[in-house]
């Protein structure tokens, strides 16, 4: 009998389904309904199932029904650390790696105003770090006392100086506290896995219920993780492979979305050139960054602020005044999909700019320092110049009239030799929006998930693009 899997993404706009034939490594079909988490999640789920059934004829019996969620505002998190570039940064990376939507990051001692702003942000989880093991405990204890005495009621993951953990738990009073290993146990040593796992567990145990997602429990078996974490798991599986099937090697994935642009990488990021000295906090091999100011709809104006109207307009071959008018139209109607050739040209320019900036911020850079013994090259961040493949995903890329022209913005540019962006990777498109599904299915059937994704990623090269444009 054919074994099938149903993979569900409770998104912020849509409820998306993928039905997979596990044995054949094939997508049976897709279904989509509105996102109705804020009212009754079942409405959107039933609509999506009906849509899927219409496409398939009838629904098969599913062996697995696994879900991820970014609904109801995603997994809203606030992180608190000590020094901004050290434990505060480590805490930020742990939260992003767990698939969170970071709504606030704090460093040093929380003031009364800080605590009030945290309460106003209403996070689902707060991650409290600070101090290396045996290091500074005064600040994390101050912050624990401030949070414990406040009206904040969310679960708190404590991942700071272990010598201060017991006292911090006491000061946090009635808050639900999950204690895990320090995000930075020794100076400049990153240890974000335990905090990531703790956040994931709180998400499954608490947040799924708090957001009302479990009301659709009759239609699925388990919500495994936030959707961004599912994408990251899928990317990791695609890069590393699994027993018996090799992966794509080191990877970079760019996902320009409506509100943010996410970039994931799986690569050591060590210098590719001998003699280059890495500086700063060590980089995680599996890294996710989120650019909150680069979004095709909610942040279209912010993209233009970052790049400049003249350049966006020139790239879209529009007069600046016309580009501005179209931008204002997007601002008035965030759901709007491009209709005219001009709107498509503007969207293309926006997505190109987002991809370029987001990837440049994700990748590291080098600088030359002149010392008494001669020039020395210092590297900040990850060197991704030699990654094997770059994958593009998300509607803005899939619906682009020239995908390659967008993906090329992720590549190294001779005009910016200090930026360590990929030089000659394979370019692949996730046309079927499978990365989250690959991450979910990978939790139970890694080989099938990997082979499914490998079979459906579409190589992008000039020839294919040319044929498509002729056919269109």
């Amino acid at each position, binding site marked *: 009998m054919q074994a099938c899997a149903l993979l569900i993404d409770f998104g912020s706009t849509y409820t998306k389904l993928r039905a997979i034939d596990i044995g054949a490594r094939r997508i049976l079909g897709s279904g989509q309904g509105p996102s109705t988490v804020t009212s009754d999640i079942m409405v959107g789920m039933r609509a999506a199932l009906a849509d899927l059934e219409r496409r398939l004829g009838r629904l098969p019996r599913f062996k697995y029904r696994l879900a991820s969620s970014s609904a109801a505002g995603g997994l809203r998190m606030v992180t608190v650390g000590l020094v901004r570039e050290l*434990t505060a940064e480590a805490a930020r990376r742990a939260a992003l790696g767990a698939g969170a939507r970071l709504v606030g990051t704090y460093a040093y001692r929380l003031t009364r105003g800080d605590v009030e702003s945290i309460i106003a942000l209403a996070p689902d989880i707060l991650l409290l770090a600070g101090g290396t093991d045996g290091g500074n405990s005064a600040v994390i204890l101050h912050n624990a006392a401030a949070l414990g005495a406040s009206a904040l009621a969310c679960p708190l993951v404590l991942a700071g100086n272990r010598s201060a953990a017991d006292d911090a738990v006491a000061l946090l009073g009635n808050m639900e506290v999950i204690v895990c290993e320090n995000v930075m146990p020794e100076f400049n040593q990153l240890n974000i896995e335990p905090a990531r796992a703790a956040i994931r567990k709180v998400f499954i145990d608490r947040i799924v219920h708090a957001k009302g997602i479990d009301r659709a429990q009759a239609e699925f078996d388990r919500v495994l993780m936030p959707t961004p974490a599912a994408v990251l798991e899928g990317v990791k599986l695609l890069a590393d492979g699994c027993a018996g099937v090799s992966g794509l090697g080191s990877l970079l994935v760019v996902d320009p979305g409506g509100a943010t642009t996410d970039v994931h990488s799986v690569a050591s990021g060590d210098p590719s050139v001998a003699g280059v000295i890495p500086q700063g906090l060590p980089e995680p091999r599996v890294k996710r960054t989120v650019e909150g100011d680069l979004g095709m709809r909610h942040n279209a104006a912010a993209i233009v602020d970052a790049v400049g109207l003249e350049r966006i307009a020139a790239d879209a071959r529009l007069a600046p005044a016309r580009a501005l008018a179209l931008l204002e139209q997007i601002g008035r109607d965030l759901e709007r999909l491009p209709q005219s050739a001009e709107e498509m040209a503007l969207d293309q320019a926006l997505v190109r700019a987002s991809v370029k900036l987001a990837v440049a911020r994700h990748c590291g850079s080098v600088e030359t320092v002149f010392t008494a013994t001669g020039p020395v090259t210092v590297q900040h961040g990850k060197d991704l110049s030699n990654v094997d493949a770059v994958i593009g995903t998300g509607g803005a890329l899939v619906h682009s009239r020239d995908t390659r022209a967008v993906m090329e913005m992720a590549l190294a540019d001779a005009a910016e030799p200090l930026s360590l962006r990929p030089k000659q990777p394979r370019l692949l498109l996730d046309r079927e929006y499978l990365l989250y599904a690959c991450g979910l299915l990978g939790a139970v059937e890694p080989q099938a998930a990997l082979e499914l994704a490998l079979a459906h990623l579409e190589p992008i090269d000039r020839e294919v693009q040319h044929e498509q444009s002729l056919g269109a």
Partner: protein
Amino acid sequence: MSAKQKVLVTGVIGSDTHIVGNRILSMALEAAGYKVIALGALTPAGDFIKAAVETAADAIMVSSLYGQGELDCRGFRELCVEAGLDDILLYLGGNLVVGKHDWPEVEQRFLDMGFDRAAPPGTRIETVIGWLAQDFAARDQRPHPLEA
């Protein structure tokens, strides 16, 4: 808590790549029972302070071998005070100035900048370890600022 292992931050300040002596010093300090946070070469002043804050260090030991020490260390004590490390012990050693100068005059210049000890070229590691023992003993005898 006076038996707590003391934490020392070491590193070579500024655009200075001379790492060998600093590494030997770090190893010797570790052998003497200290917990050493070794930042290595090419370390900006701010990084010493960030590391000391996060690890609650008891002393910062700055090396400078290329003659720019005075420029690189300008305002170092003030940076520490700014970061809440008012009372941290600050040591400095190496080729601290270019050209021939009387050591006592050079030493005084760095003491005036807020360093607790300055070590000229050729200083024995044993001497430095002796200073640390002496300076920490003196500090441990002082009443705690909150209890004073």
